């Protein structure tokens, strides 16, 4: 450790990038060993939609192709898991036990999405600061106080981003600009607009992200209903391939 400090003095970026080669011990990919790719959440006037494809990769191998990466935490909270899926599973297990403990306490209080985001922020930032990061990119969606839709992303460094669109992985680069482009200026999305956007974004993500598959699930959270729908198939049209030449 002391040696590390000497050689990296004046080079703080080495620690902030959390590259595996800089951490003591074995080397492993920066994104985790079994990562899931994009997760996209869109807030509309009545609630939130969160979608993610059903793939968890193992290097270049599309290893687990039927994994539900959108997870129902409770009747008012959904969680979308991107980044290393082992870390997501570990975090979800801890959250599940918290939900059970709340139920046992029987005091009328239950986990709200903002509270969950705050806890995740502290957890992830703490681990980042210990240089034992959890490579989890998490989207939390839910209904706050029985009526207000809440959507937020928390990244592996412990930074939360609350907005009408939240995403992880490739979705952050490709889908977020698209959602922002289509956002009506003076109002929230309607459910129809949000669903169309999800469908379009998942299609485009499948075309562009090599670590994705055409099957995805969508979680919907409204004051009356919280459930995971799917799996759906992303539209694919490779007819264009015929016209591509020159490589």
């Amino acid at each position, binding site marked *: 450790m002391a040696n590390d400090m000497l050689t990296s003095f004046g080079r703080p970026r080495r620690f902030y990038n959390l590259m595996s080669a800089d951490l003591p011990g074995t080397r492993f990919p920066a994104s985790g060993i079994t990562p899931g790719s994009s997760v996209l959440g869109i807030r509309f006037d009545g609630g939130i939609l969160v979608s993610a494809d059903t793939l968890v990769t193992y290097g270049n191998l599309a290893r687990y192709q039927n994994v539900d990466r959108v997870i129902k935490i409770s009747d008012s909270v959904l969680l979308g898991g991107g980044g290393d899926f082992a870390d997501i599973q570990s975090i979800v*297990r801890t959250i599940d036990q918290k939900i059970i403990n709340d139920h*046992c306490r029987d005091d009328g209080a239950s986990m709200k999405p903002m509270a969950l985001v705050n806890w995740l922020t502290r957890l992830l930032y703490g681990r980042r600061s210990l240089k034992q990061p959890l490579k989890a990119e998490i989207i939390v969606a839910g209904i706050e106080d029985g009526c207000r839709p809440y959507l937020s992303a928390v990244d592996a460094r412990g930074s939360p981003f609350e907005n009408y669109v939240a995403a992880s992985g490739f979705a952050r680069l490709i889908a977020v600009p698209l959602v922002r482009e289509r956002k009506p200026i003076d109002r929230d999305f309607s459910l129809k607009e949000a669903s169309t956007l999800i469908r379009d974004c998942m299609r485009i993500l499948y075309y562009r992200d090599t670590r994705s598959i055409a099957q995805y699930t969508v979680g919907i959270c409204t004051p009356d209903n919280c459930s995971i729908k799917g799996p759906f198939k992303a539209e694919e049209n490779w007819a264009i391939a015929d016209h591509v030449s020159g490589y």
Partner: protein
Amino acid sequence: MSTIGTGYDLSASQFSPDGRVFQIDYASKAVEKSGTVIGIRGKDCVVLAVEEIVVDKLYEVDAARRIFTIEKNIGMAIAGLMADGNFVADIARQEAANFRQQFERTIPLKHLCDRVAGYIHAYTLYSAVRPFGLSVIFASWDETDGPQLYKIEPSGTSFGYYACASGKAKQQAKTEMEKYKFADMSTDELVQSGGKIIYQVNDEVNNKDFRFEMGIVGRETNGVHFINHASWSQLAIEAGKAAKTADGDNEI
């Protein structure tokens, strides 16, 4: 009536000449002083009903609650010392959480009961501690095992039951229970029976001021344990009061 245990009742690590451990017997006495608690098992539901005797009018409505939720689908009711009850409820919750951490599923009730019974029994072996003054009733329901009901005595022995009772009016409650056939009852019928039994065994002369509390878990609660669920509690209380009035009419 009560045997004087002179000399052999000072610690739980001593037998008496006639083969009794008096400390455990005395623990049972503590249980007998407490308000009645019953557990009844229906076709796809289990109900825990408690006669909460109001000791002090200044208490909040949910004070001295004797029903606990241990896990999503597991409920626990106690008769005896409240302080011991809170402690054992916490032990049960820890056992369930530990099991979930290792095996990633809800602890089967038989397993939980064995663990808690073993814990309670351990406190009957040494002179350094006293036995728990508790009778514990566990209830759960899930799709695979169906409705389950277990009771642990202060000695640490535990049995599975179709219906069980503890506390002040234990004998009376058992007599009442034998009149019913719980195994085929629907949730509504079971809830009403629970209300009737508690209201009927309640001692009107000495303990007129009491609160009815109920834990319920079953298919119709989606496998979730609720304490004092508004609509079912109301059903139980109405059935109880009606039975009481009918009894009153009969007496005249």
